[in-house]
């Protein structure tokens, strides 16, 4: 029943989650905003976004949170995500090349809880979104 799932004993402090590049091209972002009822020009149209003072169309914050949650769940399938806590440092632009990273930075053995630092950076290596995830892993 627990086959393929990550247990607390499998995890080490300082362990890196597999890095990945999320799809944040215009087509993917439009699909997301259509599904969530957020089809607004600042997300779906670079030129209109610039008229609003933005550097271009931006990825919705909740899409970034969803991407980070997916990364955590890909790393630890079946885990219980207790919290995704994000700090938006700068806009993540649609059609940019983003890199998501995660690393284990706290482990509470008694409760089987692990904290993970999360970041999304752009092609210049600048952190645009950072945060933490609190997850509970099943017992070994």
């Amino acid at each position, binding site marked *: 029943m627990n086959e393929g799932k990550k247990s607390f004993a499998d995890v080490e402090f300082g362990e890196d989650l597999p890095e990945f590049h999320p799809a944040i091209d215009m087509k993917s972002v439009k699909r997301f905003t259509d599904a969530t009822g957020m089809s607004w020009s600042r997300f779906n149209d670079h030129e209109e976004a610039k008229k609003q003072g933005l550097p271009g169309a931006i990825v919705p914050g909740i899409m970034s949170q969803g991407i980070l949650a997916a990364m955590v769940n890909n790393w630890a399938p079946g885990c219980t995500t207790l919290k995704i806590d994000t700090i938006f440092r700068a806009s993540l632009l649609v059609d940019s090349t983003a890199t998501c990273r995660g690393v284990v930075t*706290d482990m509470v053995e008694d409760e089987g809880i692990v904290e993970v630092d999360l970041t999304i950076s752009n092609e210049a290596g600048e952190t645009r979104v950072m945060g933490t995830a609190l997850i509970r892993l099943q017992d070994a």
Partner: protein
Amino acid sequence: MILDLHSHSIRSDDGRAKVENYCQWIRKRELPLDGFVLTEHRQWDAKSDYRKLEDETGLCILKGSEVETEYGHVLLFGVNDDLVAALDFSRLDLPLHEVVAAADRCGAIAVPCHPGRVTVGMCAHYGTLGPCEGVQVIETLNGGSRGTENEEAIALAEQYGYRGVGGSDAHIVSFIGRCATKFEREIRDIGDLVSELRGDAYEAVSFKE
């Protein structure tokens, strides 16, 4: 001796790191740090006592503060009762010249941080408000800087003859030590740090990958 002069713990509203985890991370990743300074936003954390953690980890853990002025954010080192009485740390619009003067009068030192950052850094404000008298040291390397923000800070320091320090501005564990300050002499307490910052035997260093 290398100290990260700018970090935040969960005591800051946007900090997500526990101090214990900073220490654990530094040791696990074998970072070239001898310690760090906690500079919580808009407050003086008088209560936290990290001496036991220092003994356990061998790291120097000092406390400062980060306050907000019309020129942007400013780190304070050597905060004491006199300085807490002189300044309202919670204000968002402290006059920088008053912060610098009060720090000097109370035996502390004020260091404007991330000067190249829009709105909360002093570079842009120098264009409209002019230079602030009394500033001697600024943060020329900030671990959270984007684009040319650090280059702008270095240029400002060169233009006005300011000395430069480095700090990670870490809000999450894994960002500690991205930038720091290398001192020629040993620093054992906050008094040593203030004394060294008033001299010139140090340099900002970056460990960003």
